[in-house]
């Protein structure tokens, strides 16, 4: 081994940058989270845990946790399920798999902010295509019957869609009943293609002979083979997909900032948006730092959970 000092020049810049850009800011946020500092004033006071207490005290912050958690709880299971489902369908096709794969992956690639505006126009209460279809559907027999559930014997006027038909179509992003759901829908649309690709790779790695072995053991139906072989063999993929989707959904910002700005009545007031609003727009440095620390706590918790599960050996091979 050569005894040169070149490693200092090789490692030095990276170590300095890691420290200044990734580690130091955590301490900066940690320190300021105990102050009432804001950019307008020249000095600040130490206020102890007051910023953290505020998170539990004010309804705006409680709504923030509700919005963030609800968003994650909707987006993660649905996009993981759709990712796995589409991967299994695509991998079992005789032909055309590459085509669907490319299409489902498009939203992962495309600039989310631009696509958020495209969705905004699609969901527009007056000029949007979605409401036009729903509106026209009220007078189309089979469509109306299908969505009101009257084909199952429900009373059509009491159903959700029937109610919309006799009143008017929803303002998807402007009504607090629907806004978070609509934002979550865009999130799912954007995320599931990524999960699909990871699952496709995971499926490729499942040894074919395991299916034959399962058949010998009497697992004949597709469902039984899935339960016995596919699902458990995908163990590491599940852990990774769930963790990365959770972390990414916690970080949702673009769609919220562009389409709802946290509203209506704070129904879409997610954490990263709150951090941006308090810290950057209102210059409340103490509060922005507190939110940063809490947010980082959530992200670390998710990652450590992942590490824990991976070390527990989630599959047997």
């Amino acid at each position: 081994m050569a005894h040169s000092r070149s490693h200092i020049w090789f490692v030095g810049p990276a170590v300095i940058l890691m420290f200044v850009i990734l580690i130091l800011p955590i301490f900066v946020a940690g320190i300021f989270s105990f102050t009432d500092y804001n950019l307008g004033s020249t000095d600040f006071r130490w206020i102890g845990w007051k910023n953290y207490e505020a998170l539990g005290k004010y309804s705006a912050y409680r709504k923030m946790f509700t919005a963030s958690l609800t968003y994650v709880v909707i987006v993660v299971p649905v996009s993981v399920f759709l990712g796995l489902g589409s991967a299994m369908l695509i991998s079992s096709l005789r032909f055309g798999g590459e085509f669907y794969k490319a299409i489902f992956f498009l939203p992962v690639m495309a600039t989310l902010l631009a696509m958020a505006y495209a969705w905004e126009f699609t969901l527009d209460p007056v000029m949007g295509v979605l409401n036009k279809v729903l509106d026209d559907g009220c007078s189309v027999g089979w469509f109306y019957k299908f969505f009101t559930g009257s084909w199952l014997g429900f009373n059509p006027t009491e159903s959700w869609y029937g109610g919309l038909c006799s009143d008017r179509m929803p303002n998807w992003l402007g009504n607090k009943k629907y806004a978070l759901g609509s934002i979550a829908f865009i999130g799912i649309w954007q995320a599931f293609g990524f999960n699909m690709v990871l699952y496709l790779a995971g499926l490729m790695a499942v040894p074919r002979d395991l299916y034959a072995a399962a058949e010998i053991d009497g697992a004949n139906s597709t469902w039984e083979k899935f339960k016995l072989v596919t699902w458990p063999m995908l163990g590491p993929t599940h852990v990774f997909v769930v963790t990365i989707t959770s972390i990414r959904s916690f970080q949702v910002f673009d769609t919220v900032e562009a389409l709802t700005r946290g509203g209506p009545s704070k129904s879409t007031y997610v954490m990263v948006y709150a951090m941006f609003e308090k810290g950057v727009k209102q210059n409340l440095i103490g509060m922005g730092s507190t939110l940063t620390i809490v947010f980082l706590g959530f992200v670390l918790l998710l990652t450590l959970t992942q590490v824990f599960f991976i070390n527990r050996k989630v599959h047997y091979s």
Partner: protein
Amino acid sequence: MKQRTNWGSEAGKHIVLIVGALVVILPFYLMLSFSLKSPSEIQSISGGFFGAQEMMIDHRCLKAGRSELECTMLPIVYNYRAAFEEAPLLRYLLNGVIVTLSIFAIQVLIALPCAYALAKLKFWGRDVVFGMVIFCLLIPVHAIAFPIYLMLAKIGLTNTYAALIIPWTISVFGIFLMRQFFKTVPDDLINAARMDGMSEFSIVWKVMLPTAIPALLAFAIFSVVAHWNDYYWPRIVITGDHDLMTPPLGLRMFKSDMDGNEYGPMMAAATVIVAPLVVAFLLAQRRFIEGITLSGMK
């Protein structure tokens, strides 16, 4: 055991996938379609995909004092012209290119030597440095964006190219990835280079770099896509200076500067911003999928 194709179930799968594909494509379709149609066709949801392409008069052009003949144009021309003339769209695109390429170049410049040292050199403190890399992998830059912004504001760097680039100069993921890759390069190759009298410095750039091209290409796609599309960080550090805005931020400003019903030009601008990556993706799908899911394949 050979399975016969069950054409019934094959058709069923295609139907499900086609319905899914239609939903996925819908906003792309509408974006492109709106960028081609006239305002009245957009408002009344008519005209199909291309619109009737009837000549229309650009009112802003008339107000600027030009003749009616000059201001009569096809809706498609109107939309794209407005996108490029009403907003400095070319400037935004140029900024996007400058920022994404600078970030990638600096990331490689910092990460490659570090990865080489971690993989192939023995020195005091190596495990500590590697431990630091692993720890930093847990910290997403978006999560600590606010304190980074504070520090940049303190030294007066907001509203500069530097602010857009600095937080991304260190890619611990890049270091980790390249280290794993360099581990697989045989020591003999490096020893032979040392025998030839090459310095460690030229070993990094003349021996290791060429072996790492495939891994670097995947990392390039990963990095460029992420930063071309990033909206959160530019939104924080660039306030008001249009000359520094990246494409997504520019689109945001374009929307708030436009009148309420300028959907055509808006969607024309959105199309122009989304197009480069989508086209590149369609041309080199496998590489793109590999690059973007890189973080998932480690």
